[in-house]
């Protein structure tokens, strides 16, 4: 057996080592001590600088609404564009989980300070606004970054070695357990921490380490530009994110996968909330990073709850956590129970992979720095759900057919649902977020309808590359335009930052399913699978989603990079609507994009039998039937390609060539109403918020303030004050006057005598 397999612990150990060195050695001893000295000077410098630089002023405008910019009026109002509906919806948008409540509460103390909160807030904003970074990372912070990159690079090489070893030795592809240690062993119940390596693991390892490596490389530039003081902390969190994802991927059992699962939640919590000082921006419909992190964690916990119950059912029925042992030990387990267990396990996947109805955390997670978004969306967090279903696929197979049907239909519904929301969004990162949710839906459809995990994982892989590219590209855009995420203030960027735009275009084509791009192969395979398995509803859903995807992705492209006056009918460059000077990003930004562009374009060939691709055979040991392995043999491919081309064409017509009027869909009241609903994301956030605020919090308040304070404490205090009142009454007898006492003594004597008499005479 290859040492790549037996010493697989090296892969998670590398980021762990990076993390430990970061937080235990470099950070406390070098970085923090240096930074504390430099801090005052930095702050002073920033204070002096604020209000002078053009960036500062413009940034301020952006943050506080559309003030006095004719161009903005042009696009926002005068033109009566389709965006109009949701622009006005935006005006009346009431905020997120934290906004209505948080600000008045903050005021509670701030009111006491002279000048009030609002004024102070403005000054604070200017001082601490992360969009106007001051200073630069210390040398030790940079070393932390280099160390993280280096260790992740080693892990990537190891994963690559593993993949190659597995490719050369098909015997290894079917799985090998690598024991690490026993966590707990009680009375014959074993809680193992063991790794499991097969081709699925190897693929995931390569994806995770590769994307992580590129993202870490990229983060150097990005964090320097956004929050330099958190530089080494960011790399520490990235390392722990990689560690938890690698544990999850490597686990051989439900214990370790659950641990990795939760740790991924932790990492995402830390990273989404990385820009902790930022406030919510209700005017842009954006929560504060803290609120987004909280939401991500809690919503994920809802899914984890289901996952946990599923694990409990399986564990108590079989007495083992190990995936490969469970089928043998299932014994006479009730089929219905297994089905329920697997659906519950899928609940966890719904949470992590942001499927309906637990998708709400993902768009808010965009409040994290963009590299984090890339990680979460491409390789790490959301892939975990798909990976979980793939890993436990044998159990899904053993369970009743309802389990996989649930998977497929949740996926299909989420795909079209999220795509529809993405149609009307104006925030670059949010569109990409919804597109991720939608694409994950595809993966679940793939897992749900196909009898094999191949198509789903294939799409997971291709999606990881092009989605990472899209996010990193959007990060490049944000860096270029000073962190403005509003597409209405972009446009024509292709000619201004071509090194970002070119790979971005390739990825857009890939996700839209343009023929011969990676996304085309993986997505078409899934669409074809639904038809082939006779699931025509899902077929219609996925086909429609393909059209929508192409449309909104190219809408994004044209509004950001293209537009009126650009080359090739608005495809490349054009009018720039922003006010901020566009900055050219350096090589740390565009190099990862270029690298990612290669698999985004070519990764699909691994599944195309015409060029010798055998992805499915590698993953599952069984090649796909030719109909799936080569999309060009199937007549259905025409429909898939047609849908995507139609979407591209429509977007081109509306936003590039501008031959189709923009209000074609929203000129009628029905369309406008629908657009408003879409803009508000079907009001799901609001429903959840109301549920939490009025039902959960309401019940809790009843418990805490009524049952505890009134009833239980009432009884306790009532008992107490009853005794006190009794004593107080009794105290009146203690008058302090001797004659009263004398009367009591003799009266008492009389009573005793009477009792004695009664006992003696009537007792007989």
């Amino acid at each position, binding site marked *: 057996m290859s040492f790549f397999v037996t010493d697989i612990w090296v892969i998670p150990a590398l980021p762990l080592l990076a993390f430990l060195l970061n937080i235990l050695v470099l950070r406390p001893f070098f970085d923090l001590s240096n930074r504390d000295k430099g801090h005052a000077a930095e702050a002073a410098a920033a204070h002096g600088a604020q209000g002078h630089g053009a960036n500062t002023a413009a940034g301020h405008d952006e943050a506080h609404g559309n003030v006095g910019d004719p161009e903005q009026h042009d696009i926002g109002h005068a033109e009566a564009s389709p965006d109009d509906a949701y622009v006005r919806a935006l005006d009346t948008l009431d905020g997120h989980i934290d906004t209505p409540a948080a600000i008045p509460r*903050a005021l509670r103390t701030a009111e006491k300070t002279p000048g009030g909160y609002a004024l102070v807030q403005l000054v604070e904003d200017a001082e601490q606004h992360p969009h106007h970074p001051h200073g630069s990372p210390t040398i030790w912070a940079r070393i932390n970054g280099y160390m993280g990159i280096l260790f992740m690079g080693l892990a990537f090489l190891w994963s690559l070695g593993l993949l190659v070893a597995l490719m050369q030795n098909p015997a290894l592809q079917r799985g090998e357990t690598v024991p690490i240690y026993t966590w707990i062993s009680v009375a014959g119940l074993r809680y193992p921490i063991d790794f499991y390596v097969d081709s699925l693991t190897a693929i995931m390892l390569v994806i995770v380490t590769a994307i992580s490596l590129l993202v870490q490389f990229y983060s150097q530039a990005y964090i320097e530009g956004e929050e330099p003081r958190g530089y080494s902390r960011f790399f520490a969190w990235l390392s722990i994110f990689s560690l938890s994802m690698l544990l999850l991927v490597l686990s051989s059992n439900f214990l370790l996968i659950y641990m990795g699962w939760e740790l991924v939640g932790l990492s995402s919590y830390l990273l989404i909330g990385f820009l902790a000082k*930022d406030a919510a921006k209700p005017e842009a419909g954006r929560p504060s990073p*803290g609120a987004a992190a*909280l939401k991500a964690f809690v919503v994920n916990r809802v899914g984890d709850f289901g996952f946990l*119950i599923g694990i*409990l059912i399986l564990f108590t029925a079989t007495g083992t956590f190990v995936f490969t042992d469970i089928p043998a030990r299932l014994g006479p387990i009730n089929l219905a129970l297994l089905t329920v267990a697997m659906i519950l396990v899928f609940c966890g996947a719904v949470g992590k992979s942001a499927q309906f109805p637990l998708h709400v955390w993902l768009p808010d997670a965009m409040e994290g720095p963009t590299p984090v978004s890339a990680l979460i969306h491409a390789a790490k967090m959301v892939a975990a759900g798909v990976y979980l279903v793939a890993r436990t696929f044998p159990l899904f197979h053993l369970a009743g057919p309802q389990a996989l049907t649930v998977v497929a239909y949740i996926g299909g519904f989420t795909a079209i649902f999220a795509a529809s929301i993405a149609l009307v969004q104006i925030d670059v990162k949010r569109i990409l977020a919804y597109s991720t949710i939608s694409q994950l839906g595809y993966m679940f459809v793939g897992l749900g309808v196909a009898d094999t995990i191949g198509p789903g994982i294939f799409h997971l892989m291709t999606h990881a590359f092009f989605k990472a590219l899209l996010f990193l590209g959007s990060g490049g855009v944000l860096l270029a335009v000073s962190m403005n995420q509003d597409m209405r203030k972009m446009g024509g960027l292709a000619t201004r930052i071509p090194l970002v735009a070119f790979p971005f275009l390739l990825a857009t084509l890939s996700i839209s399913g343009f023929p011969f791009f990676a996304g085309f192969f993986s997505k078409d395979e899934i669409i074809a699978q639904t038809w082939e398995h006779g699931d025509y509803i899902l077929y219609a859903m996925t086909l429609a989603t393909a059209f929508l995807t192409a449309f909104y992705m190219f809408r994004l492209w044209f509004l950001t990079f293209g537009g009126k006056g650009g080359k090739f009918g608005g495809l490349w460059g054009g009018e720039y609507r922003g006010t901020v000077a566009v900055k050219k990003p350096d090589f740390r930004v565009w190099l990862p994009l270029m690298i990612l562009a290669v698999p985004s374009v070519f990764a699909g060939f691994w599944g195309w039998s015409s060029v010798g691709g055998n992805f499915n055979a590698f993953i599952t040991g069984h090649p796909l039937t030719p109909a799936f392995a080569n999309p060009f043999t199937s007549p259905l491919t025409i429909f898939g390609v047609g849908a995507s081309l139609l979407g591209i064409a429509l977007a081109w017509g509306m936003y590039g060539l501008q031959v189709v009027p923009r209000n074609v869909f929203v000129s009628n009241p029905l369309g406008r109403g629908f657009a408003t609903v879409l803009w508000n994301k079907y009001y799901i956030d609001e429903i959840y918020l109301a549920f939490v605020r009025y039902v959960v919090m309401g019940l*809790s*308040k009843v*418990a*805490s303030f009524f049952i505890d304070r009134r009833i239980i404490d009432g009884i306790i205090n009532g008992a107490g004050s009853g005794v006190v009142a009794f004593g107080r009454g009794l105290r009146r007898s203690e008058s302090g006057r001797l004659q009263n006492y004398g009367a009591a003594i003799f009266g008492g004597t009389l009573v005793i005598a009477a009792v004695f008499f009664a006992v003696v005479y009537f007792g007989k």
Partner: protein
Amino acid sequence: MSWLLTILVFLPTVGALAVMVAPQGVVKWVAAVFTGVTFLLSFWLYIGPLVHMGFLGPLNNTGGFGTVMSPAWMDASPWIHFTVGSLQLNIDYRLGADGLSIFMLILNAMLSFLAVIGSWHIDKRPREYMALLLILETGVMGVFCAFDLYLFWLFWEVELIPMFLLIAIWGGRRREYAAWKFVLYTIFGSAFMLGGIFLIYFMLGGQTGIYSASFAFLASHQVAGNLLVGGAAISAQLAIFLLLYLGFAIKIPMVPFHTWLPDAHTEAPTAVSVLLAGILLKMGAYGLIRICIDFAPAGAHLFALPLAILGAVNILYGAGCSLVQQDMKRLIAYSSVSHMGFVILGVAAAVGPGATNAAFKEAALTGAAIQMFSHGAITGMLFFCVGVLYEKAHIRDIDVFGGLQARMPRLTWIYTFAAMASLGLPGLSGFVAEYLIYTSVYAIYPAQTIVAASAMIITAGYLLWMIKRSFYGPLNPHWSGIADASILEMAPLVMLGVVVLIVGIYPGWLVDLLRPSLHQIIQNVNGSVAGLHR
């Protein structure tokens, strides 16, 4: 070495006397030295048997740290013996420590030491404060290693006095109310407990002819027969269990006997809150495991289902209440209610139905015991965190803060660490206990487990919401001058954090420590349950 337990119990008392006569300037140092020495000595409880068995030898084969019948540590001498007619009262001075005791003793020694360190800033009558802390340590030490039921009860009551004074003198605004509530609740429970002790002592004495309150005797002999209460016959063991349990339930605390806890926690000074949550609640849990279910297993079995329901209610109710608290300490106090529910749930499963589930039962009991330890460490951390904040801001309301991360990064991350540990993040000790309890209790009480597990969502919600409101967002300008936690303040936090981390990553050593004790209890339970159904 058999004097070690006596030394451990009474060294703090000696320390208290030393503190009373020490010069004013060195009072804190004296207290720190005595608690520190006790802490270091307490390690020998763990290491000593290991050395004896051949270092890190196979614990399972040699019986490990012993059971309540033959504990690894024993220190006994006759004490009070008198006979009046047919009434025999035999009370022995009997200290012992098996696995279940040892780790609670070490936890107590550690938290007491950290409490002294964490009270360094106390300037209101520090002499009396430190002396009371040391006497409290004696009382709690005694509770965890008393192996005679009367001695246990004695120490149980001894602990009340310093705690009452600590809350009533050094507490917050409503300190007297809180102190009285704490004492009255506890005394209410311990009255019933004493009734239970008498009942088991005299019934067992009458049935076996041997009047003894030693744990080994009580664990190896079971009370039989029924008891007439108001004309209805109930199982004598059930009566004993309920009487004893009422005392422990108040300490744990179990809903609806929990309302002393938020008040006491909120009003007590930081270090006392730490001890209260870290150790005093564990006395109830320890009593439940060591005494209730081991000495009255059949009674416990009869009460298992209500116990499981109460445990689940505890977990959910505490979590719900935490969600709406404004005061950080109150929030953590309610989270203690929630987390101690896991102990109740685990114990309920351990005495629950199903003879084939012995493995799950033992796992459940192990989970309950680990939860005792882990909750002690984690809640200690949380209270220390709040204490640091309170020392600087003199206010604990969650909403008045905001954006503190900018000024207090160290506190932010250690606080987040503690919150994550509390909400059961893998790799930290809270997860070990919760996961063990979930995975084992589900086999016996699935519905209750699901209810309990649903609290994990709420737990994440209230803890992280608290973090978010205090530490995230733009800095509330009112606090722009606040300083970060100092090294002295970080020391206890980091120490506890390391413990939490070690237990979380490799809980095996703790399980090995506990195994023989818990195995004996489970055998006892299974044996008498089998007798009950025969």
